[in-house]
């Protein structure tokens, strides 16, 4: 059987590879999206003090360490049965909103933006962040850089460092915010709201107003009917830091809503021998393979899934945009995966609005940022929404608070089955009769980018073309054709 190998896919944390097998007619028989990396955090964190987990697990991902820092701190709170003071929770969440705004911005402009703003069929050399800047102007490029700087600045002010923050501990945080710092953070947040509104307008003008793009978004290549997951508050509004995990079925009906401590009743993970990463699925539906539908336990955890799984946004401007999106697309849930990029911008607006809400709360500068744990530590679960999906940390400790067991279900991991399905579907749509065209490369990339996989997040502010090379070869290794996609 002939095979097309995409190796290496760059912009991954580590490396990735897709093997696409062709049948005798040259159509796609099957494909395998492989993750070749394992580091073993669940084992080597055993024996460490639980208060170090928010610091150690940062190092799982240097792109979204803030998510691990927060999930780790919440799990450690739970281990000690301690509820941090309101100000401590707000400071954690404020840091987290600034991070979210930055992270979503860089994904939209540097990774996803080129496909829409410059165009999926634009010359390869222009289909990157520089092309985006050429198209929208230097002034806007400057805004994108400013947004990243502001976000990282807030993370550093509260967390100590731009990458791998250090402030969250069991029972609260170590940092007390001064009034001068608060003012600066508020100003930056107000700027971020304007930036988010501007970005949504740009999406409207450049993407939605263009019939070609709209057809692409509403077409079949990136369409999957699956379950959707997201963290919601008491009113079923999207929340990144706290709440219950809600899952809706492919018809949009609530399938389950669970407390973090109950995750193991709802989620199971499948092991395949051909990849180091596991495939989570809904335990109460079951694993039926890489297939769509209500009978398949495959679920998605992404910006679109969070909107699908919620009843709205908790801030007014984001709520308006949420309503507009679903009105435009004919109701909930939306299964067209490219709409994830729109949902991401609505989340950016929510993050910016909530950033200002937190920064203007009278208690944000209170020195009451920590509650001393007094109970014997045992076991705890912490869940937050990472930008790339629901993030679960589960720790068990001995009576001294030393880790005895760890379980982690990490953001992008949730989407491993959907990523496999999306790339497979894109390959099937494009490879027919043994012919591979250059457009395949970008179409496969777009299949990844929907999910903003953490493999790619390190690329956020550099030329945004995922470099790929496709080698078409016979089973005995003879090269038939090599197609390359270069970055300009």
């Amino acid at each position, binding site marked *: 059987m002939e095979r097309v190998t995409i190796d290496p896919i760059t912009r991954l944390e580590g490396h990735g590879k897709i093997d696409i097998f062709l049948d005798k007619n040259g159509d796609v028989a099957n494909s395998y999206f492989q993750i070749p990396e394992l580091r073993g955090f669940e084992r080597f*964190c055993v024996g460490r003090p639980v208060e170090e987990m928010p610091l150690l697990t940062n*190092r799982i991902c240097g792109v979204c360490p803030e998510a691990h820092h927060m999930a780790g701190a919440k799990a450690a709170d739970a281990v000690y049965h301690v509820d941090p003071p309101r100000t401590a929770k707000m400071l954690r969440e404020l840091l987290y909103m600034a991070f979210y705004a930055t992270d979503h911005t860089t994904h939209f402009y540097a990774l996803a933006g080129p496909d829409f703003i410059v165009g999926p069929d634009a010359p390869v050399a222009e289909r990157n962040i520089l092309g985006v800047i050429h198209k929208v102007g230097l002034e806007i490029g400057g805004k994108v850089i400013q947004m990243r700087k502001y976000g990282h600045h807030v993370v550093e002010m509260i967390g100590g460092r731009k990458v791998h923050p250090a402030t969250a501990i069991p029972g609260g945080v170590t940092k007390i915010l001064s009034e001068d710092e608060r003012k600066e953070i508020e100003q930056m947040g107000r700027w971020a709201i304007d930036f988010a509104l501007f970005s949504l307008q740009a999406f409207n003008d450049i993407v939605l107003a263009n019939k070609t793009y709209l057809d692409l978004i509403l077409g079949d290549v990136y369409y999957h009917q699956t379950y959707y997951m997201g963290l919601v508050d008491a009113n079923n509004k999207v929340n990144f830091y706290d709440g219950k995990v809600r899952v809706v079925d492919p018809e949009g009906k609530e399938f389950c809503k669970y407390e973090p401590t109950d995750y193991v009743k709802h989620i199971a993970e499948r092991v395949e021998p051909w990849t180091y990463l596991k495939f989570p699925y809904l335990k109460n539906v079951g694993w039926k393979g890489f297939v769509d539908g209500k009978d398949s336990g495959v679920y998605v955890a992404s910006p679109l899934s969070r909107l699908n799984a919620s009843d709205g946004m908790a801030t007014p401007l984001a709520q308006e945009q949420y309503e507009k999106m679903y009105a435009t697309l004919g109701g909930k849930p939306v299964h067209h995966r490219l709409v994830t990029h729109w949902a991401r911008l609505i989340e950016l607006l929510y993050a910016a609005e909530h950033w200002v809400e937190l920064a203007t709360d009278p208690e944000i500068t209170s020195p009451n940022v920590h509650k001393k*744990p007094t109970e014997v530590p045992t076991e705890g679960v912490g869940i937050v929404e990472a930008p790339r999906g629901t993030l679960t940390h589960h720790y068990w400790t001995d009576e001294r608070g030393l880790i005895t067991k760890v379980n982690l279900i990490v953001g992008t991991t949730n989407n491993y089955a959907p990523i496999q399905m999306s790339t497979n579907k894109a390959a099937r749509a494009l490879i027919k009769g043994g012919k591979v065209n250059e457009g395949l490369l970008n179409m496969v990339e777009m299949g990844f980018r929907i999910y903003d996989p953490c493999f790619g997040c390190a690329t956020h502010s550099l030329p945004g073309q995922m470099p790929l090379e496709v080698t078409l070869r016979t089973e005995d290794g003879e090269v038939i054709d090599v197609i390359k996609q270069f970055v300009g």
Partner: protein
Amino acid sequence: MSDKPKFAMYWAGSCGGCEIAVLNIGEKILDVDANFEVAFWPVAMDAKYKDVEAMEDGAILLTLWNGSIRNQENEHVAHLLRRKSKILVSFGSCATEGCIPGLANLVPMSEIFDTAYHTISTDNPNGIHPQPVTKVPEGEITIPVFNPVLKTLAQVVDVDYYMPGCPPESHQIAAVIDLVIQVLQGKAQLPPKGAVIGAGGSTVCEECPRKRNVKTIKAFHRIQEVAPLDPELCLLEQGIPCNGPATRSGCDSRCPRVGAQCIGCYGPAEGVIDYGARLVTAFASVIDATEPEEIERILDGIPDPTGQFYRFNLADSLFHAGAPSFGNGRK
């Protein structure tokens, strides 16, 4: 083809934070672009292993390598880039001393797999573990072999310079890029081979604004037991096991500034051969006790000595088998 000198950056077993730290230098990235031809940088542009293989040996002037040697693919590329690079920099904590993932060296490889693929949420009745080669109905597919021991870059190939930090702070990265550009312009000289670059020559304590009264302590405390801490007093003097005294300067003491202890991510201070040994000495010097039982009681306040003393540098420590490579030939 450009006649500018070639630049490469590569990540191996790492978290991506080093790449983010490089991106956070902002407009300095444009200086890299103006002065170098970016020949290989998977995160940013499209060049493949075979493009590197096709280069003449020594064709790349400067390679920044981040990440540990966790699997055989990392090891293969380390040898390849060593051959092709005139200057190879061990960039960041993973490459230089193994970092947090180096703690995996405390346990046998089999336990890492037995844990990861048999957690409470994993449904794996047949005990499947990932395999280097898998037969699927359509053919064979492969993934890299996981090495039993995590190694630093210098344990695998010869390294020219070391740049510590998890990740290196962006202002330090910018300063190193400035220096290299000045060297290219004939305005500066490269430091001697084996030097630590992008960091200070002292300890985190020397950069820390907190007051030190050279007091001694009767007990170590875990941070959640005593917070809130005095915002101006040395954390170690408040009984928090802060790694500042053994850790190299260069980060501007970022964590102690927000009330969190230094955890040692910049690695051993200048002249220190074994980080843990130095930190033990530093802690011993503040303990206010002479009776062995009392000393033991105070040291029991450090619940995880291995993690405390070798959190970032286990893979490169004396504790780990073999001689430390970090700083081989360091002046």
